[in-house]
Structure formats: C-alpha cells, structure tokens
C-alpha cells in the first residue's frame, strides 16, 4: 500500500486512482447526457455537473456505503461518487424499466437506498431536512452512520437550510452540509443574493463549524469532508462545508448563460479544471504514471459507452407501472 499524497482520510494510491477514474466517469456521463439531450434522445430537462467533479468525487470517497447522502437536481456526480452503477442511471434517463427508479424519476430524482443514496431532489433545499432526519435515525439507533446533504449556493437562502442547520446543531446530529458554490443560483450571482462574503460564515449562526474550500482541489475536498464526517461520527454534530467550484455548462438545457462572461468561463475551463489539476498533481506525486492516467480515463469512457448500450437495449417502462408504487403495502 503506497500513499504518495498525504490526506486526512489516509487514502492510498489505489483509492486515489479510483477517485480519478470516478471524476472522469462523472464528466463522461454528463457530457454524454448533454449530447443525447441535444439529439432529443432524452426528454425533460437536465442539470450537468461538468466542471464540478472534484467536489462530488472527493466527498463521496470518504463516505461508507452505509452512510447516507441526499443529492441535488445537479446530482449525477453525487450519485456516481456514492457508488451507483452508471448503467441503471443512464437507463433511468432513457425512461427504462431497468433504471434506478424504474424510469419514474428521471434525472432529478435518481435514488438508490441500498447504496445509501436517499435521492436527488428537484426542490431547491429539499435535501437538508431529509438528511437531517436520516442523521436522526442514525443517532437514535446508534448506527454510527453519517448523512451528507449536497446542496447548491442558491439553496442556502431557503428556510429549510437555516431550520435544518439549527435542528441538526441543537441535537448534535451526524450530518454534513456540503454546499457546492458554483457562484450562480440558476442565473442569480451569489454576490447579489447574499450580503456576506462566504456561505460558510452562516455556520456561526448555528454554533457549528463552517469552512470554505477550493472545491476543485480533490485533496482539499477529501480532507475537509473527512474531518467533518469524523466529527459527525464522534457525535460532535454537523459541519457546513462550502466548496467553491464552477459549472461549465448552463443551469439547464435552456440556459444561454447571458449572466456571465466567456472570459470567466475560459478561466475556469483552462486553469481550474478539477480533473486536469488532479492529473498533474497525481503524476507529480507518483500516484500514477501518464499511461495509467490515460488508462483510468479510458476505462471511464468505456463504462459510459456500456451504460448507453445497456440503456438502449433495456425495455421502456411498462405501462402497467402507471399505477404501481403510489402506496406501500
């Protein structure tokens, strides 16, 4: 076991290689989805996390399978990082019976409870209280599980954010609130929507730690998430993490991105690409060679091609499913 890059979670090179591959899996998945939308092969809407791969892959890597997450409407990355197979995910977007949700949820509702994913949520801020409740279960049953709620910057202006942080704090619940601050809530620049410098400053109001990190630095994400998760597991309560990142694509497929400049986009794509940064850092440190990096990237690409094949070959959700699953027995 070699550990070429020191990190709080003690992840060895093999694990870091997996994380690197996960980042590519997330990117290829969302780029493929983007193409399919453009071709009209997937309907509805979609929210892509291209450019935000490090925050999902790094945080997901320090969670156990038995830990819980709630994902956002931009949740493909969170779901992949938590360990859900890309085949049923792609099948879900294609509306197939083999989809994670039998084709009844689509992009914004992908869930896999067996893998600790309590679901992506299309209600902005919808995951905060649900994750808080999952953490409450863990605490009441002494299960040692942690719940991590992914959310975007815009959702921190919702009441559910404030109420949930307060509730989790007073009950010392094992929950981590992980904000991906990509600087825009749809078209609303975060600086116009709040009057404090950092979202993490809000933690002070609830008596919990708050930290702002470079969300495109995979090691920084791993370290901050690990510290927060361990604090939660020790019974010391929640942490608010603000990971600064950037979505390369628009909010959703209808977005012409008039609210930001080409220069800004270029800067993030050229100099702050989380995958490019990880590749350089990992090669420099000896985590993997150039060849190995290409091999991991290629494996990720192949897994998405297989996922597309699986989705295309799967039967569409049967009409007999229309009335099933409304109520539980």
């Amino acid at each position, binding site marked *: 076991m070699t550990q070429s890059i020191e990190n709080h979670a003690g992840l060895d090179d093999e694990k870091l290689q997996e994380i690197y591959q996960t980042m590519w899996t997330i990117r290829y998945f969302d780029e493929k989805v983007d193409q399919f939308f453009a071709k009209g092969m997937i309907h509805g809407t979609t929210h892509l996390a291209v450019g935000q791969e490090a925050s999902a892959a790094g945080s997901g890597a320090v969670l156990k399978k038995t830990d819980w997450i709630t994902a956002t409407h931009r949740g493909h990355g969170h779901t992949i990082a938590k360990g859900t197979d890309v085949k049923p995910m792609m099948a879900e977007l294609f509306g197939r019976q083999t989809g994670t*949700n039998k084709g009844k*949820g689509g992009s914004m509702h992908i869930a896999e409870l067996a893998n600790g994913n309590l679901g992506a949520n299309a209600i902005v801020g919808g995951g*905060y209280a649900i994750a*808080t409740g999952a953490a*409450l*279960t863990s605490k009441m049953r002494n299960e040692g599980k942690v719940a991590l709620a992914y959310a975007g910057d815009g959702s921190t202006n919702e009441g559910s954010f404030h109420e*949930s942080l307060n509730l989790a704090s007073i009950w010392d619940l094992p929950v981590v609130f992980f904000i991906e601050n990509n600087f825009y809530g749809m078209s609303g620049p975060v600086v116009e929507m709040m009057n404090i410098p950092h979202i993490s400053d809000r933690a002070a109001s609830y008596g919990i730690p708050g930290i702002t990190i470079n969300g495109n630095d995979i090691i920084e994400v791993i370290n901050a998430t690990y510290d927060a998760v361990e604090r939660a597991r020790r019974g010391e309560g929640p942490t608010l993490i603000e990971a600064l990142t950037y979505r390369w694509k628009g909010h959703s497929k209808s977005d012409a991105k008039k609210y930001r400049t080409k220069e800004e986009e270029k800067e993030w794509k050229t100099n702050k690409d989380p995958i490019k940064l990880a590749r350089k850092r990992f090669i420099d440190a000896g985590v993997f060679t150039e060849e190995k990096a290409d091999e991991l990237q290629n494996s990720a690409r192949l897994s998405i091609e297989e996922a597309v094949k699986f989705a295309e070959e799967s039967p569409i959700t049967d009409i007999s499913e229309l009335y099933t699953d409304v109520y539980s*027995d």
Partner: protein
Amino acid sequence: MREITYLEAIREAMSEQMRENPDVYIMGEDIGIYGGGFGVTRGMYEEFGGERVRNTPISEAAISGAAIGSAITGMRPIFELQFSDFITIALDNIVNQAGKIRYMYGGKAQIPLVMRTPSGSGTGAAAQHSQSLENITAHIPGLKVIQPATAYDAKGLLHSAIEDNNPVMFYEHKLCYKTSSDVPEGKYLIPIGVADIKREGTDISIVATGIMVHKALEAAEILAKDGINIEVVDPRTLVPLDKETIIKSVIKTGKAIIVTEAVKRSGFSAELASVIAESESFDFLDAPIIRLAGKEIPIPYQPELEKLAVPQVDDIVAAARNMMKKN
C-alpha cells in the same frame, strides 16, 4: 368498557405503540414537559424521555422534512403540528417529498410517518388557528388522510396510521378532544378506508366528517321527533375513501346531505357529492344533493360570527326538513 376522551385515546394509541416498538417516536413544538399545545402528549415526556418525545424548535419545514428523512431510513415518526393552519409551512415536504418519493423512486422507498394536527374552528382562535385544510392533503396522491370523530375511532385509526407504511395525515378536531366514548384498553386497529354508519336510518343519508359527525347525530335526534329518520355516515378516512358504504346508504335512503366544516368551494364536500353523483346511487336520488360546509370566508373571531362561518346543528335540521318537505 371504560369511557375516555378523544384526547386521551390519541395519547393512549401513541403510548401503546411507543411501548411496543422502539422505532416509534414523536416530535413537535412544545410536546415535552409542556405536553403539547392541547395537552395531547401530557405525561409522555416523563414516561419516554426527551429522546423519543422530542421537543423541537419552531421549524415546521425542518420537522416535517426530518420526519421524512427519518422515516425513509427506518424509523416510524409521528410529528405533531401544533395547529393544522401551520401545515402551509410544512406543505413543501408533505406535498413534494412525502407524497411523491415512493413513486419517484420506483417503489424503492417507503415513508411510514404520521402527521397529527388539531384543526377546525370553535375555540375563538380566529382565522390563522381555526381552518380545516384537510382537503389540501386529500388532493395529493401518495398521502393517506384520516379525520376521526370519536375517541374510539381516534385510537383505533391512530394505531393503524402508525403501523401503516405510508405518510398519513391525521386531523384531530379541537372540539372533539373533550368528547368521550367507550374505548377498549390496549391496541386495536380500525382499518384505514372503512367508513362507519354512526346512526342507521331510512329517510336521508347525512355524510359528515370530523366534528360534523357529532352535529349530524344531534340533528338526527331532533329530526327523529318529527318522524324523520336520519342515517349518519362517517367516512372516517378521506383517503382512501370508502365509497361503497356511502353509495349503499344513499341507495337505501334516496337522499343525501353532506356536512363538512371546511370551506365549501373546492372542499371535500364536493368530492363526496361527486362520489354519489358519479355512482349508481345517482339513479336512486329523489332530491338534489345538499352540501352544508364552511362559508367562503376566513374564520372570524367574534363568537357569533364564528358560529355562522361553519354549519351548525340548526342548519342541518333545517336542510333535512326542507328536503323532506319537497318530496
């Protein structure tokens, strides 16, 4: 059998469930030492402690969402909403999460939670503490909705609600809390979705919900002196609704009066009328269906106005007499 109040019956059902199943717990505002806004949980904190009788901050959005998160991960939470009017604050979670998650996830999740809440007018608490909003949740697929009128029904239905694997909205009328009836000790289950004929009769079927069941029964006694024989049908659960019992009753009597406290326009009274109108019982009607329901106004404070805002016994008596006169 012993007689206990509706309020005590609800507390008994929760306590019996909590003694039997460690996954059942209750959370809400002031439900701890205070015993809840209406005293329903009084004594429960002392028996079960603060871990299972969880006093919450005034945060309806967080409480309702946390109940869902805890239910989906294996617990069976009951959350007490202090007044049903506040459901609007919790409604995002109830409507957009609790009611939909199972379907959206292709059946791979269940949300066994109960939301209990006092509703209705008659206490002088005015517009923001007196509404009957049960129709809002009855409209949403994925939720079950219960509205018990008697102590016996409240206990048996609450036991069933807590053991149900779906989100169940449980509306308790404030004026019912002090009413009492024969209630067995220990657990018994009244199935969700089975109506109850509260009084058998042959002339008019009165389908009444919640507190209106009591008013209908009182009206029936008065009408009996006129020789008018009223049948009182209490659906007890709005979702699922026992249409069959209602339809059978109307076929028998040929006349239907519907009495609910909620505002008439777009209220559950409209649903009940439609069930009758759309069924085979329509052919047996020998008079138009009458709906008595809340006026299209917020509940006023002044006691006389408050009474006028919702159906009273005299209104039911007058409607029934009128209906009989026309035939």
